[in-house]
């Protein structure tokens, strides 16, 4: 295998064998079948819906299966303002998702509380769940969401999945 490459192919080897790293194979599978769960809490969810529609078409990147059940999804897109009262539910839904799982904080509110500098609003969803990708905007355009999800795919590509399969993901 050439150094730096994730897979190697030699036409002289009989039977069309492709050599690769286990990590690369697992990550390739995972990143192209991200099942997002829309945690739509405010206006960001409208942009999230637009990203799922035909104009922006989230399925071009292999993550169109929006699952409304945490049991069947592996990427929670927190789209909107998280209040302290809602924070418990957000965390509980995150806990119900099966490993491996990722979180995208979509928009200013989910990332930092945004314009809601108030007694009722959680100042960033990273206080209750580990966030992988933050997307700026109020609300972000669907293109920004798609870009954020592609960043997540790149992040998944770099993960050490084999280690976590044996030891458990921290």
């Amino acid at each position: 295998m050439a150094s730096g490459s994730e897979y190697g192919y030699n036409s002289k080897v009989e039977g069309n064998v492709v050599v690769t790293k286990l990590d690369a194979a697992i990550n390739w599978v995972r990143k192209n079948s991200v099942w997002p769960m829309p945690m739509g809490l405010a206006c960001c969810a409208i942009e999230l819906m637009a990203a799922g529609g035909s104009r922006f078409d989230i399925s071009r990147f292999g993550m169109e299966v929006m699952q409304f059940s945490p049991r069947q999804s592996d990427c929670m897109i927190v789209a909107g303002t998280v209040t302290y009262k809602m924070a418990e539910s957000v965390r509980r839904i995150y806990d119900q998702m099966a490993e491996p799982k990722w979180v995208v904080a979509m928009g200013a509110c989910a990332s930092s509380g945004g314009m809601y500098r108030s007694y009722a609003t959680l100042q960033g969803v990273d206080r209750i769940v580990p966030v992988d990708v933050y997307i700026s905007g109020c609300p972000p355009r669907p293109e920004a969401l798609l870009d954020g999800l592609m960043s997540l795919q790149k992040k998944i590509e770099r993960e050490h999945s084999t280690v976590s399969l044996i030891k458990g993901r921290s």
Partner: protein
Amino acid sequence: MLDEDKAALTKQFPELSVRENCNYLAFNSSVSEFKKVLETLKDEFGYTFLSNLTAVDWDTPEQRFSVVYVLYNMESFEYVGVNVVCEDSENPEIESVADLWPAADWHEREVYDLFGIKFNNHPDLKRILMWEEYPYHPLRKDFPLAGKPTEFPSDDVRERMGTSVKPAPMAGGPFTAGTCGSMSAREPRAKDQSWNEKKEKPSEK
């Protein structure tokens, strides 16, 4: 409201006084009498619709809280307001009107949640917006917009994540939207941009 109706009402309730209001006719009433006034307005004067129920914190040592009722007449298309001052400024109490208008149920819960005014004989008086265990009433004038440090509402999340309710960062003042200028100038932003997390507020130097 017709002048003769107004005269009939004030004759029936001599304590009632007209309250200065630039939008619609309004009255000052008392805690002991207001419910009868509202019932009369509803049953005899056609103000059948409870348009609004809210409260005001005047931030004064005496007569601090007043509850405001706005009624609407579907036939004459008129509003009437009734303003009731709570007697106690520390633990204000007032009679519930949820039996006259079922819609008052949630309005009274909201007023109870945010102002801490207790509505007697309410069917289910509990917080509606903040979580049950929250110890403060956020719309009172002595409560800061940023909030006060409190325990996180959920036990297990608090234990695992070690999070608590902290005052929100108020650098630059609260976010406000402008009312004039171009669309970009009207976008919500920190009111006073001369200070932030790193640069001190000029007046506190």
